[in-house]
């Protein structure tokens, strides 16, 4: 009996000695990350880019975070809020993950947040950009490592008036929360700088044929601001050119309209498109050049902002877990640590959270150009350290309602 006890102690000592530091945590089992992404359906490629980003970070770091092995469980949301909720339940209740991440589409983000708060498990949102999750309806357990929909639009709207000199713009935005917020943010600063939105068109999510909208575009405009997502980004530029508009009206857009994931499939009709976003694969810094090169070597394509954001999310989880000695089981402590993370050298540039839990980061104005036979989002202007409130005071900004279909109202339509 006594011999047995001594034997186990010895065995334990040997284990600790051979595994080295971190072995104590290893006994707790791996850190499980539950990752939600659309792996089938219209946004499947975005989902793949997201998973690739996180996977690449983990592979580069040997699947170890704070001395503990890391296990990622990917679940397919099909881009649907109800499916995402079911999968969230599965990840928490049967897989017992300690941290959640991922998700795509603003409305999915709004649907998941209350459930995440109910489970009291930290969830990182690298992509879902729904404004109010870090504004009027903050979710306590959601940590945003991505952006708010209107964040890039704020500096861009003003810039379009002042630098490009366009005064009258028509907007065409996909008709759901993300579209309203991107267009709304643009309209606010654009009109405050002296521009006029003279028409707002809202094609539904999943529109295949934009002709009915394109043929309504007013002819007395200076430019068109289009917000497309996923597969619609693919069709829109060609249909825009086919409708004879490219020759007459320059095309501006939200960042996702000229997504990196869609650029290789676009033709020359996309050249010249200008859009703001938190990332461009063409950012010319050593960190990003290395990231793009490595990503390409692994997955055979240029990383999109989805890949970058999920890659940085890996870094984020790591930094937070490390700062609390890998004790991610203490959820309150882990959440607090996640909110404190600052990543000074992410591929997209420096990132840290504001008091409302949304990253303060650079916004890049990108122009689609052709280099060596490939389309790239060349950076033509960088706004450093932009917060989700832009140049406004948070308290004042939060007095206005969240951007939607009819806010800001179209005064010049």
């Amino acid at each position: 009996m006594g011999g047995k006890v001594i034997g186990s102690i010895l065995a334990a000592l040997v284990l600790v000695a051979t595994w080295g530091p971190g072995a104590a945590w290893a006994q707790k089992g791996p850190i499980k990350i539950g990752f939600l992404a659309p792996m089938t359906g219209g946004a499947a490629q975005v989902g793949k880019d997201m998973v690739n980003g996180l996977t690449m970070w983990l592979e580069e770091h040997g699947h170890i975070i704070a001395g503990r092995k890391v296990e990622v469980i990917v679940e397919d949301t099909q881009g649907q809020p109800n499916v995402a909720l079911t999968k969230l339940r599965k990840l928490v209740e049967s897989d017992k993950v300690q941290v959640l991440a991922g998700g795509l589409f603003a409305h999915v983000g709004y649907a998941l947040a209350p459930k995440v708060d109910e489970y009291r498990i930290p969830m990182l949102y690298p992509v879902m950009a729904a404004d109010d999750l870090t504004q009027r309806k903050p979710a306590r357990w959601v940590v945003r490592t991505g952006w708010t929909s209107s964040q890039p639009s704020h500096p861009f709207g003003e810039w379009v008036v002042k630098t490009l000199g366009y005064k009258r713009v028509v907007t065409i935005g996909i008709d759901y929360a993300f579209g309203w917020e991107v267009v709304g943010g643009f309209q606010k600063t654009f009109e405050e700088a002296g521009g006029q939105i003279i028409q707002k068109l809202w094609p539904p999510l999943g529109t295949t044929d934009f002709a009915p909208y394109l043929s309504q575009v007013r002819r007395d405009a200076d430019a068109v601001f289009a917000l497309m997502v996923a597969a619609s980004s693919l069709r829109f530029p060609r249909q825009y050119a086919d409708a004879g508009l490219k020759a007459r009206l320059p095309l501006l857009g939200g960042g996702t309209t000229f997504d990196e994931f869609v650029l290789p499939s676009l033709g020359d009709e996309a050249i010249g498109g200008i859009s703001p976003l938190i990332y461009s694969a063409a950012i010319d810094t050593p960190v990003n050049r290395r990231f793009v090169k490595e990503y390409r070597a692994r997955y055979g394509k240029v990383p999109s902002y989805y890949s970058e954001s999920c890659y940085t999310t890996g870094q984020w989880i790591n930094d937070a877990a490390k700062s609390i000695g890998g004790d991610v089981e203490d959820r309150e402590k882990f959440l607090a640590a996640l909110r404190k993370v600052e990543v000074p050298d992410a591929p997209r540039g420096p990132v840290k959270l504001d008091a409302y839990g949304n990253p303060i980061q650079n916004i890049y104005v990108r122009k689609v150009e052709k280099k060596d036979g490939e389309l790239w989002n060349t950076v033509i202007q960088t706004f450093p350290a932009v917060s989700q409130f832009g140049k406004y005071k948070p308290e004042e900004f939060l007095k206005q309602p969240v951007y939607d279909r009819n806010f800001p109202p179209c005064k010049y339509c």
Partner: protein
Amino acid sequence: MDFWISQLFNGVSYGALLFLLAGGLSLIFGMMRIVNMTHGSYYLLGGYVALTVIWRGGNFVLAVLLGALAIAAVGIGEWNAFLKRLSGQELGQVLTTMGFALIFQDLALLIWGGDPYTIPVPAVLSGAYTVGQLYFPVYRIFIVAVAALVAVVLWLVLERTRIGAMMRATVDDPEMARGVGINVYLISMAVFALGATLAALAGAVAGGFVGVYPGADFEILPYAFVVVIVGGMGSLKGALIGSLMVGLLDNFGKALFPELSYFTLFAPMAAILAVRPTGLFGRA
């Protein structure tokens, strides 16, 4: 005026695409009473095969034709191996075709990945004709031309040839057709293959215009069903009129009442069904 002309043109060209897709569905539906949920997959696969042919150096016409033929073979296989055995069991058939649709969706994702693509269009077919202030994209004119050609050929085959007569007989009364010595199985297979071919053709042609991407199959399927339900199943004329109606309604609905775009599409469908449960040209 300009507005009406260009919207009319848009509606007709979208209707033409829908006709290519729904014509086959209508025949299959009417002749075999198979609610073919795989139809959207044929559309998707047709686009992907065409794309692959172009990647391998084939030209546009070859790509579209090979896409259509390859999917005809897929359709024949599916029918022979599974659907034939389920003849008359409507629920079993629906579930089988649904199963195939899901399998094809995943297979396509496995083979072609999740990236969205557009099929490169030859220079002759890109750009637009301008008439005054109006723009008519050449590719849309091309789609209308293809649909018109297919409609005429189908009509000639169905109305003017012996095999067409056999097909119509099978639609009207399969038992009697069998009784007078028509090989209903062979005819059914041919119709199924024809339906698949048309769907694939639609997919390949649409690839140059709305793109080929995962999810296209289930995105387009409801439209095809609306066309068939409005037009009446098994009727070529019904499919043609139905497609034009759906194309125009969808287009004018979106242009005039953008907030009600689904309402303007589905409300007329409900109204038609209330008055004529078999569709405009269908027979009970």
